[in-house]
């Protein structure tokens, strides 16, 4: 894990992005500039369709800006090849999805093991990492369960375990509590804050929920593709 004291960990400079809808173009971002430091817990809020997911996708290297630059650490994501982006994700990113995106045919432990398959680790080393990750999210005894047998809160904890099992520097979470009840949501948010505070992870999280955003160290508001000034009272 690398910390950058001078340059920010992640920076967007003059990023433009639009989608085609039939014949017309919908501009999502125009000249978006933003930087995130290592170790921050950033919440991104904004109305539906404001481009929150699009922003996360570009930060994850699974979508590309039309123009502008996105730098993450020493990698220029806007110039990287598909292969380099894939590798960058595998090495530096943990992704958490709103609907968990676990493979239904695999057990919790097998799902968590997936990102490790690319690492030069033997079977037992992988099993040990999976065990530690399961323990961190409080599911030590659920490794052999399949997704169909678990509750939403448990599924998202498996999702977080899968995201952290490679010990990435950045966690990107798109509405991680969007599908959960209040109690499960709180557990997940506590877990994310724990990852930031005790593991030093940089966390970027999209949420609609002000209570969730309150866990972040900084809140960004997106509206019509623009960053509007954060209202301080929302972040605290």
């Amino acid at each position: 894990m690398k910390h950058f004291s001078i340059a920010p960990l992640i920076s967007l400079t003059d990023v433009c992005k639009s989608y085609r809808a039939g014949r017309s173009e919908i501009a999502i971002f125009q000249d978006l500039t933003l930087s995130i430091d290592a170790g921050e817990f950033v919440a991104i809020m904004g109305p539906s369709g404001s481009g929150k997911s699009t922003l996360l996708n570009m930060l994850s290297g699974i979508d590309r800006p039309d123009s502008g630059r996105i730098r993450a650490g020493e990698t220029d994501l806007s110039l990287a090849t598909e292969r380099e982006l894939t590798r960058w994700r595998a090495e530096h990113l943990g992704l958490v999805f709103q609907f968990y995106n676990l493979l239904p045919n695999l057990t919790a432990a097998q799902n968590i093991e997936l990102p490790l398959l690319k690492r030069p680790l033997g079977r037992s080393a992988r099993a040990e990492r999976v065990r530690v990750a399961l323990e961190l999210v409080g599911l030590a005894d659920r490794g052999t369960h399949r997704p169909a047998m678990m509750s939403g809160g448990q599924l998202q904890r498996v999702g977080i375990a899968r995201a952290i099992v490679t010990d990435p520097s950045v966690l990107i979470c798109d509405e991680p509590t969007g599908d959960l009840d209040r109690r499960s949501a709180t557990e997940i948010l506590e877990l994310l804050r724990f990852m930031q505070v005790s593991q030093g992870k940089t966390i970027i999280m999209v949420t609609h929920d002000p209570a969730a955003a309150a866990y972040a160290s900084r809140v960004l508001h997106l509206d019509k593709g623009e960053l509007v000034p954060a209202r301080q009272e929302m972040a605290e």
Partner: protein
Amino acid sequence: MTRQTRAVIMSNLMSLPHRIWSSASMIAAIALVVFVLTGFLAMARGLEQSLAATGATDVAVVLGGGARQELGSEIAPGVPEALLAQADKLEITALSREMVMPVDAIRQDTGATQAISLRGMDITGPGLRRSATLTDGRMFKPDHYELVVGKAIAATYKGFKLGDTIEIGRSRWTVVGHFEAPGTVFASEIWAPLAAVQTDFGQGQLIQSLRIGLRADVSLRLLQPALSEMDGTQFLAQLEREFYSIQSGHTARLIRAFAWPLALMLAIGAGAGALNTMLGSVTSRQIEIATLRALGFSRSAAFWGTWCEAIFLASIGALLGAGLGWLVFNGFSVATMGANQNQFAFALTVSPDVIGPAVILALLIGLVGGFIPALIAARMPIAAALHRGG
């Protein structure tokens, strides 16, 4: 293969039950191609085997008049005598003068009339067919209107039971014996004394062919120059095995020339089905594929996962089609037109060289039909797939 790729393949295969009907239709279409092709190739192979089993390597077949088969061949009456006069020198052990006539016979089951072969031969003739053995009755006597009938013929057509008399040509004939000659063309013939057949059909002294027992296959090299010194038209002297395998070659080629275009047409249909099935598979797995790619799985893992699924389904289709083909076709007995335009029966043979090409075609269907879907899986735009699915 990387662990990632293996994991994707395993995950795809495990999710197959969710796509059971579409997968089953791809398997069935491929199995049909294999089944049909197996049937035809088994027919060609069975024909070849039957005719190869018929031919001996120490018996020569001599045709005259430039003919390549017995019908239309003619040999002057002096030729056999001239050959026998120098039997020792030419290493000839036995000689039979022969002619074949197509005669009508009535099937016991349908009552239909079909042509079968009546072969007139010298009394030495049966001895030159070592695969044939007399099972009932006795051999015909020279110059008598007596028939010795292949058992398969006796079982299929009316009037050939032991002791039956039957009208053929202008005379009544008595069935005096049955013989069997498993797996050979002879099993579908009726044998009779040459002179009786010549007289009955008003053919005078016509001899179509000679069967000549040789001391060894190399003795053919003595026979050929001796024949070319004789009067009369062009002679063709071949070992019996060669004679039949050339004939079977024609028919087998014909069957294959018919079977392959048919199989390829079915294969195109099956390929389109495979393409459709696999496109459906990629669509239904798009979130899974996009998720794995987002987690850092490579494009090639997505590609191989899909391609291997197609190959796997094609293999099952191939196995099913070949297994079914073997069960149905192997040993299945059919009748066809023989070399002399007459019925003869043989058994289909489903051998590895029959199944091999059919299975390879099936795998090709999987490879081709799965390729584009695999490419689509590999090149799937991750964000868009997650957006659509989420």
